[in-house]
């Protein structure tokens, strides 16, 4: 179980820019085996929050614990999937997937065997010896996912993993992710700015708002599982439409509010997150 309480972070004033409240009083509990999606407009601090959970950046106030232990940095029980894929262009697909294991000192034979399994799981068998640059975006992110799964983490952190992909690829990968997740049931925290994606994938959707970044609302998604085989039916359902419409209403209010606020000031620069 991940517990986040009273989390706050302010990016210091830089030059002429005023300090930015990236996050303020964020409270959130994520249960084991839960698929939580975090939805919000750009600049609301959702990526910042995820990177804190990953242990990549420090914060000012509050606490994040995993099973009661506070986070002090990256840990083996968490693995991250990046929006930019973050593949090493000089390593083969096999070595990229095996990277996390390599860092842990797993022997070459073992880690390559494990990586091959995962490459098979994400449907990239035959591409082991290729370099990332030779693969399409969708295939690259499959590698990113396989790399995260290879270290068998308890928690999967996904930072807008499909954000850089085209619509068709995105839908395919959503289905595949559901399939894989519904087999393994790891805890997943998934950042997105797509409402449909948030609802389709998540058990719950946490809605974040900007300035200061905070959790505005948490919506349960009572759609039945497994969903991987019934994506079309789910997206056509009344329940799905209702939840999405409700999220959109809140998002739109947020954006309108922002626009009014911005008209009062000179600019509305995005925080560095």
């Amino acid at each position: 179980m991940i517990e986040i309480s009273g989390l706050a972070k302010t990016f210091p004033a830089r030059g002429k820019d005023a300090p930015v409240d990236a996050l303020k009083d964020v409270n959130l509990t994520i249960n084991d085996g839960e698929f939580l999606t975090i939805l919000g407009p750009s600049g609301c601090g959702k990526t910042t929050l995820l990177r804190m959970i990953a242990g990549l950046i420090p914060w000012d106030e509050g606490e994040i614990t995993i099973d009661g232990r506070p986070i002090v940095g990256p840990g083996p029980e968490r693995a991250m999937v990046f929006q930019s894929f973050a593949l090493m262009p000089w390593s083969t697909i096999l070595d990229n997937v095996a990277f996390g294991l390599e860092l842990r000192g797993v022997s070459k034979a073992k880690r390559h065997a494990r990586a091959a399994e995962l490459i098979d799981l994400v449907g990239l068998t035959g591409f082991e010896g290729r370099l990332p640059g030779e693969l399409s975006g969708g295939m690259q992110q499959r590698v990113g996912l396989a790399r995260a799964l290879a270290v068998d983490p308890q928690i999967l952190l996904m930072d807008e993993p499909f954000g850089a992909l085209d619509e068709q690829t995105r839908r395919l990968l959503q289905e595949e992710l559901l399939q894989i997740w519904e087999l393994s049931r790891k805890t997943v925290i998934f950042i997105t700015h797509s409402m449909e994606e948030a609802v389709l994938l998540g058990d719950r959707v946490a809605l974040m708002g900007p300035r200061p970044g905070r959790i505005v609302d948490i919506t349960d998604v009572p759609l039945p599982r497994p969903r991987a085989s019934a994506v079309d039916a789910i997206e056509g359902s009344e329940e799905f439409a209702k939840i999405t419409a409700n999220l959109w209403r809140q998002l739109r209010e947020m954006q309108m509010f922002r626009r009014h606020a911005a008209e009062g000031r000179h600019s509305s620069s995005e925080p560095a997150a």
Partner: protein
Amino acid sequence: MSVTTVKVARRHPPRLPGRQLASNAAPTVIALAGGIVLWEVVAQAWNVIFFPPFSAVVVRLVELTLDGKILESLVGSLTNLMIGFTISVVFGVGIGMLMGAYRKVEMALDVYVYAMLTAPSLVFAPIFFAIFGLGRASILGVVIMYAIFFIIINTTAAIRTVPVGLIEMGRSYCATERQLFFKVILPAALPMIFAGLRLGMGRAVKGTINGEMFISAVGLGAVVISAGRRFDAAAVLAVLLVIIIVALVGVKAIQLIDARMTSWLPSTARAAKARRAGDRV
């Protein structure tokens, strides 16, 4: 999935070296041949002492080679070049990495490195001459002054421009500092470091020749000076041809090592990196 198949598959990127070479080489050969013909014709017609025809230069080159002068000077110059370049690489890459890795080291040194990069390097030759006298050390000093700052600047920039996303990725998988450096930062920085080494090699050749011309005791540079004193233009140009070949071979050697060590890089990206590196010259 066995290891051997991986190795085979890795060779996959469809590069056709033979054909590429041919398509690049044709205009080069034509251009060089045309240039030589033009040189010969103009020089024969003009007939002045400072512009001997190509044929005369070749004859002179053969003479100088036969009496052993070129070979002896070439060995001397190559020794200066290799020692000076090696020292520049070791210290240049080392200092550059420290500057890239530690903000404070960069803050402390950057103005000085840029100043030395801008300064005409040969003005330091009299100082080396003052300290080390007529010997090889003076020339090595000049070679290092020519080459090292390019290598430092590029190495620093190479470390600095490693994508933040990759470093974060490494950290999120719990890489230790050591692992992060050797498995992520160094490979990512390698192409640009090599761009710096390539520039540094070109500079080192210039430093060698200019240093030798200044000290005027050993090497091809000294031959240029003495030929100049005798108004032997053909000998000057003959030595210059040798120098150009040394420079081109040196740069090509770095490129070959680069291509081996960073074969993952698409050739377009390599060109772009080289260009960016060139901007800092």
